[in-house]
């Protein structure tokens, strides 16, 4: 599956991107970021371009599938680097039958947005963040980094720290935090 990249002198490649369960065959200029491939070539405009420099998180998508996928900034990832993995965008986060992901429902419930531009990135980021915490990953806000510290408790300080890669210029942070905490409380 690894890059069908031909020779060093070509500036574009034929490649396959697997997005939300569908494989797409594309020829892309190597300069194309995953973000631009999603938006401009696949019509998946849910993923947003904010700063385009990895500073705002609006472009956050998951690599490696809906469960256990890792959040990344798709603006800093070249599309040719994303060939060997399952890419999940905000369009693929809901169930196939259309039922919203719990985070999507909680963001609606808590009015966790104003303009909504950062929202897809916030939700994708939060989905992966909950998985990271469940896997026991510590954060800079964790009281102890000791592996014996036990399961991560996602209090407000932990959530703020772990979500700091997603900016909201409307300042909807209070309700974003409430939406994420709501999902945590409903989790089994």
């Amino acid at each position, binding site marked *: 599956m690894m890059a069908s990249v031909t020779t060093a*002198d070509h500036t574009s490649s034929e490649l396959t991107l697997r997005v939300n369960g569908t494989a797409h065959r594309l020829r892309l200029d190597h300069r194309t970021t995953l973000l631009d491939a999603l938006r401009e070539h696949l019509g998946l405009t849910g993923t947003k371009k904010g700063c385009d420099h990895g500073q705002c998180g609006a472009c956050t998508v998951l690599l490696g599938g809906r469960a256990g996928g890792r959040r990344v*900034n798709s603006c800093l*990832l070249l599309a040719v680097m994303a060939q060997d993995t399952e890419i999940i965008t905000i369009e693929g986060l809901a169930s196939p039958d259309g039922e919203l992901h719990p985070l999507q429902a909680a963001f609606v419930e808590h009015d966790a947005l104003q303009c909504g531009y950062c929202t897809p990135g916030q939700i994708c980021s939060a989905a*992966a963040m909950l998985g990271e915490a469940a*896997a026991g*990953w510590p954060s*800079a806000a964790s009281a102890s980094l000791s592996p014996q510290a036990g399961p991560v408790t996602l209090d407000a300080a932990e959530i703020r720290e772990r*979500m*700091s890669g997603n900016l909201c210029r409307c300042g909807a942070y209070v309700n974003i935090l409430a939406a994420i905490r709501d999902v945590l409380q409903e989790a089994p």
Partner: protein
Amino acid sequence: MRPFGYLVPPDPAAAIAAVTGRPGAAFLAGGTNLVDLMKLGVASPDLLVDVTGLLPGRIEPAPSGGLRIGAGVRNSDLAADPRVRAGYPVLAQAVLAGASGQLRNMATVGGNLLQRPRCPYFQDVTKPCNKRDPGSGCPARVGDHRNLAILGGSAHCVATHPSDMAVALAALDAVVHIEGPGGPRTLPLGGLYRLPGGRPDRETTLERGDLITAVDLPAPGFAARSAYRKVRDRASYAFAVASVAAALDVSGGVVRDARLALGAVAPVPWRARAAERVLAGRPATAEWFGRAADAELAAAAPLRDNAFKLTLVRNVVVRMLSELAGSEPAGAAQ
């Protein structure tokens, strides 16, 4: 952005050959800094050699009794590793203090060591910069230098090294494994970096085609009593204004050994050896911790707007060493 070729070589030797043989070629790992610099026009390789699938991506026991961290290990995996968290808290804390969850998932250990400065003039191709365009000048000395170097800079460059992780590795005496056109070799972390002097365009001692493959940590010992403290302009997701990595071994109220490195104050991760020399064998008190910081900062050459870092670094050093020694500083620094 300039068009470029993209190559996924079969093995590290082929990757090294590809970069060695082509002046415009660059290794690509996580890409979080390089792709950004290409967008900014600061970097313009004509070939990217993707080594993400080639570099060791595991953390394993090292012959030294410590750990060998593959250069392809993602920052998030490094910080989450139970052996790192238990034996080298300074390193886990430093990595977690850097960037965001998204970026730590992409960024690799090798790439983190080789990231470029975030000096505003270096990153702006419409401005002169001796690092980007040798001989063009350095506007930072009279311009925006609030967050630039107070130690180790030169008349030609006062950019700071941006890594948190490398500051912890400097304090830990980490060893960098390199493969290159001349074969494999190792360097102490401090030997990887160069002070700018008259050649700020040369940031490391690596030659064309040299590839960092792993970083060794020494056997865990008193590194278990270590910490990283980062001061920044906002609570999270910002580069340091100053940072300190410290490890301390105290017995009977006396410092047996101390390791100290400073971040965001110099063009390289700054090992504070003058401070360490002051501390050895001395009482583990706030007074001596302050003297140690003063000894290190005696060589500082702050600019108009960054002399505040002198006080900041001194206070953070005193507080951290006091906490590591198990005692609050007398007359606590703010």
